[in-house]
């Protein structure tokens, strides 16, 4: 009964309000308003999500980025100069592949050994020691150890350290002798240094690559 009263009372609704609605009812082309807004909203949300994922990846908010572009650097001090090394490139002579070491801890250890070797060299260079002597090869201006060829199992390593300012330090390790390319400095490693360095270089090889000789 009471509901009926409400419906009956609706007959008292002002005519202007009824007319307003009646005018709409006559529209044959009436359809829900602009569904494109839903698609635009969905597209905007998707863009925000993608931007968030991109930013998270770029700034490593939730996971570490790929180590292809290392951003960590190890600071090495040599002769009072600071160098930030980012790559160590190791080539084993006689093998086709070279390895890139980006692990800053390993690079730091390599640098430590290389750069303390001269200290060892200067303090331990005795005439009758077992270290090799170097003979100048006039043909290609290289230095050749007088013991080269005496130990066929020795590997020869070329170590290139690349710094963040794109400078490179190139070392060749032949036996226990390190030759620094630019300065031609011979550095003789003691047994302990040599063992440590070779361990580092070989440990970080995943495979030896194909032997070329």
């Amino acid at each position, binding site marked *: 009964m*009471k*509901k009926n009263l409400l419906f009956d009372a609706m007959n008292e609704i002002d*005519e202007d309000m*009824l007319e307003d609605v009646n005018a*709409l009812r006559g529209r044959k082309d009436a359809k829900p308003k602009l569904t494109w807004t839903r698609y635009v909203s969905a597209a905007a949300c998707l863009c925000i999500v993608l931007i968030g994922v991109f930013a998270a990846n770029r700034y490593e908010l939730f996971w570490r980025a790929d180590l292809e572009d290392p951003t960590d650097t190890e600071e090495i001090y040599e002769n009072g100069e600071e160098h930030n090394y980012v790559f160590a490139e190791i080539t084993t002579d006689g093998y086709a592949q070279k390895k890139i070491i980006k692990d800053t801890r390993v690079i730091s250890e390599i640098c430590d050994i290389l750069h303390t070797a001269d200290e060892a060299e200067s303090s331990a260079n005795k005439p009758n020691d077992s270290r090799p002597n170097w003979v100048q090869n006039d043909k290609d201006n290289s230095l050749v150890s007088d013991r080269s060829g005496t130990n066929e199992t020795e590997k020869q390593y070329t170590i290139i350290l690349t710094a963040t300012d794109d400078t490179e330090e190139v070392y060749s390790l032949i036996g226990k002798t390190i030759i620094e390319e630019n300065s031609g400095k011979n550095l003789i490693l003691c047994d302990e240094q040599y063992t440590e360095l070779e361990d580092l270089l070989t440990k970080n090889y995943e495979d030896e690559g194909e032997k070329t000789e």
Partner: protein
Amino acid sequence: MKDEAIVELYWQRDESAITVTQEKYHVYLLKIARNILNSTEDSEESVNDTYLAAWNSIPPQKPEVLSTYLGKLTRRISISLFRRRNAEKRRDGEFALALQEMEDVMTDFMDPEREMEEKLLGELLNKFLHTLKPSERRVFIGRYYYMDPLKEVAAYCGMSEGKAKTLLFRTRKKLKEYLIGEGLLL
């Protein structure tokens, strides 16, 4: 023919007024009736009764907007017919559904006389409807006055059916609170 001219025919007691009214408003009135009665035969009967009611009431009435005036007549007649035909049982139809939806608005009521009740409630309804946003008002009137299906109401009000449904729910709730505030509901 314009509404003023048709109303003038009624005032001149010219029987062509009914013919002209039928030509112009038959489909419109039939839709209102069908929304309530859900029966073609009953709807036709209701609309025919509307023409008679219009003839009997004009004059003295002089409606400015004939469509609205006739719509009210058809609505009232159709609701009465619905009640007569379906006193005890429910039937399909938008009016039955609309009644059901309004169950949560009207519960108890104080006891003035029926006509006064209707007028009073009508005034309050008008005041209430003026407090609503246009979209809310249109949906409410479309659904509960014209008894249009919700889908149609949503379409001509330019919104989704879900949104229209939510609007109606909130409006019914507001109406109930309004009527309680006015002392009409306990």
